[in-house]
């Protein structure tokens, strides 16, 4: 039995019943917590829509090369015959001089005439890659250190908690800008965009673990005093068993919820870094760098600002809605 609800008495068991009141009474029997959560999530249309968009985004990012070759042009190909250099590089054609046409689904960028459709897709791939991997790093470090600190307490806890304080007080943005400036050209056997992507994932992931670490530590502190943990200990379970079999399963909900909320934060952070020009190479399309390039030209071609802006907005919103719904579904005390 790994789920506390089922081992910790009849009062907690009553909760899911209340939620399911009105459904067929037979359905109450034998449902696990995850089944209940899924049932709740299914009824939350907003969260489902968010989840749907997230899945779609992931598919788009994965199949980006195919989509670009079918519906677009290489993201770095210039089409200067489509812009009027004398009018500040404004696209010549399309509604409101956006450059939108059958061949350029989202129009072209002013001045260089690169395909916005291909660029925003390429940006999705990079944004999601960086956001997912950096979130994974944060969550891994945060969970391990958070549970260790919460479970063992004493000097271990003091040491880890103070380290967290240091990381929380860290001026991450400034550090990221400085590090991106210091690491030039080649390092660690990598170069170009590969190096910069790895660097961004490391910076964003490694310096964000303290937030989730704190939450996990707090949860672990309360969990380790619970009866089922006492029972396990009383039966002679070793700390590793208690940590992995008794405590960790109960942390799945906060970890999942926090991850879905951390991903959009990381997308925004990556966009901010690219906007400030410390992201990837100049030519590489990311949503942040597209926004940075669009900012001075907004009056020429508003669509140039809207495309990457909306991409960031929709993605962050979708993740947040989904994360929010997930939290409600996983929290037995909600509703």
């Amino acid at each position, binding site marked *: 039995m790994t789920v506390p609800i089922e081992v910790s008495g009849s009062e907690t068991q009553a909760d899911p019943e209340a939620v399911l009141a009105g459904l067929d009474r037979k359905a109450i029997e034998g449902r696990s917590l995850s089944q209940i959560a899924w049932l709740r999530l299914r009824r939350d249309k907003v969260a489902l829509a968010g989840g749907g968009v997230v899945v779609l985004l992931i598919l788009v990012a994965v199949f980006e090369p195919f989509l670009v070759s079918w519906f677009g042009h290489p993201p*770095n190909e*210039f089409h*200067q015959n489509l*812009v*009027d*250099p*004398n*009018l*500040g*590089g*404004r696209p010549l054609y399309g509604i409101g001089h956006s450059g939108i046409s059958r061949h350029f689904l989202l129009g072209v960028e002013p*001045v*260089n005439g690169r395909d916005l459709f291909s660029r925003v897709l390429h940006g999705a791939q990079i944004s999601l890659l960086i956001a997912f991997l950096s979130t994974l790093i944060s969550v891994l470090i945060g969970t391990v250190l958070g549970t260790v600190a919460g479970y063992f307490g004493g000097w271990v806890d003091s040491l880890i908690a103070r380290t967290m304080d240091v990381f929380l007080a860290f001026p991450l943005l400034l550090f990221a800008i400085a590090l991106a400036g210091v690491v*030039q*050209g080649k390092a660690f056997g990598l170069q*170009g965009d590969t190096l910069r992507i790895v660097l961004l994932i490391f910076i964003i992931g490694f310096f964000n673990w303290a937030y989730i670490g704190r939450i996990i530590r707090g949860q672990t502190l309360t969990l380790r005093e619970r009866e089922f943990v006492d029972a396990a200990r009383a039966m002679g379970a070793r700390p590793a068993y208690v940590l992995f079999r008794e405590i960790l399963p109960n942390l799945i909900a906060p970890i999942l919820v926090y991850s879905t909320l951390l991903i959009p934060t990381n997308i925004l952070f990556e966009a901010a870094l690219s906007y400030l*020009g410390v992201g990837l*190479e*100049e*030519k590489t399309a990311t949503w942040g760098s597209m926004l940075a*390039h669009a900012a*001075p*030209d*907004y*009056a*020429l071609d508003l669509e140039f600002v809207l495309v990457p802006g909306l991409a960031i907005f929709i993605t962050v919103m979708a993740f947040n809605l989904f994360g929010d719904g997930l939290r409600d579904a996983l929290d037995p005390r909600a509703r």
Partner: protein
Amino acid sequence: MRNVAYLLAAGGMLAVSLAACGGSGGTSSGSPASSFNAAVNGVVNVSTKTGGIVKYANSGDWDDMDPGDTYYAYTWNFDRLFARTLVTFGDTPQTATTLVPDLATNLGTPSKDLKTWTYTLRPGVKFEDGTPVTSKDVKYAVERSMDSTTFPNGPTYFAQVLDAKGYAGPYKDKTPLKAIDTPNDSTIVFHLAAPFAEFDYLAMLPDTAPVPQAKDTGANYKSHVISTGPYMFQGNYTPGKDFTLVKNPNWSQSTDSVRHQYADQIQVQINAAAPDIDNRLLAGTLGVDITGSGVLPATQAKILLDSKLKQYTDDALTTRLWMSAISPTVAPFDNIHCRKAVEYATDKTAMQTAFGGQLGGDIATTLLPPSIPGYTKFDDYPVGPAGHGDLTMAKQELTACGKPNGFTTTIIARAERPKEVAAALAWQQGLAQIGIKTDIKKFPQGDYFKLYAGNKAAVKKNGYGLMMYGWGADWNDGYGDLSQIVDPRAIHGVGDTNLGVTDPAVSALIDKALQTTDTSARNTIWGQVDKMVMDEAIYVPFLNAKGLYYRPPNLKNVWVNPAFNGQYDYLSISAN
């Protein structure tokens, strides 16, 4: 007005090969009809009426308000309102690039060997407090400007040219400077280390604006520069704060042949937002964008689509050259064939588009712009009829260099200049056509020459093979334009403006020009210097810049001054 002068230049230039379409009727009431480029061809809204306020706005701030420590084209242009120099430029479009005496009665009288230059001061010129200006005040001003620790911004010509090796300025060096004599209060004599036929241009520099020693407070003198011109500071100037110039009661028209005192006041706003400057110009509530970098691209599009607005604009050719440099110290560019491959593969048309198309400038093939005497038309590395690069020649050179499949290198550019970065991107695309892969790195323009492009060790160590660059003439002449970018003696290792020319033959040719008194013979030599440097394939000139300027209809006496990079002439502009 070297490179740093163009702070926002990139942002603003546009261009157009618009047929100069005249004011096509429909002028709104109260606004006089005008025409496109009217201020390039003559003076617009001529008026000798007094009164009114001329309003300027600056998107940044002065490098230094002290005339002895400034190196921007616009500051040299504006400082003439309160700082008179020994020699200056003429006050009409026809005489704009002609030197005329200002504090002096005549241009300099050289000795036969061109190593001694004598000037006589005009009688009756006074400081704003009524004290007469003497030759000692001019000498003191030049001496203090040679202290490059206290005054790091200004040009260093006097330190290079005067016979005063190692002189550190009057604050540290208590031994009087022997290279400048003042036999009496109205005579000043300069002794040079080597013959220098163009010394009158140095007498034009703001460094020669007199400074009364009793009022000098070193680096703090900028808070209240003692005026000799028609306007003086109201109260004190504080860096970053707006300031106002008012009429100087001790300036007299009879002693001055180029200045006037029409406007009552001149107000300058500091650190104004660039888009706001454009909007206020169009609304007529601001007179001039002082940095003279031209309107922003979005404003350009708005103006050009509206003939009512377009009639109040000028698209003037400047002496500013947008170019790139190839570092001969970075492999494989130590091989001239690899440099030539880059020259041929450069997509100059795409780079021109990045700078605003034909309105942003004309494609360049030489270091000297056509507006500078001595300009000789030649093209060492033609880039094909459409300007997208001559790939056949480029590949040939690449093979000759031993890298037939291309190589990888770095392009560096100034981060704050969107047009320069866009041009770097266009360059990257062009070079990729022959397999030269590049990575663009952006650095802050404030450190660009100190730490990056102009730092010899950093270029070599970090492999900055290709560097975006821009240059404007200090004055409109071969020496004023070329010396700081091609003379190997201008390389000091840090803060260099010569990004790689080391051939001593170039120095020898420059010296030959400086010893030539005949102007046309000298100008021919400047053309030869240009060719000699281009043959080495170190610079890739791509655009002779233009700037699109808007002059509100209510501004008077407006004309484009080619001596100051095609900005409006700030000495003439009045408000009534």
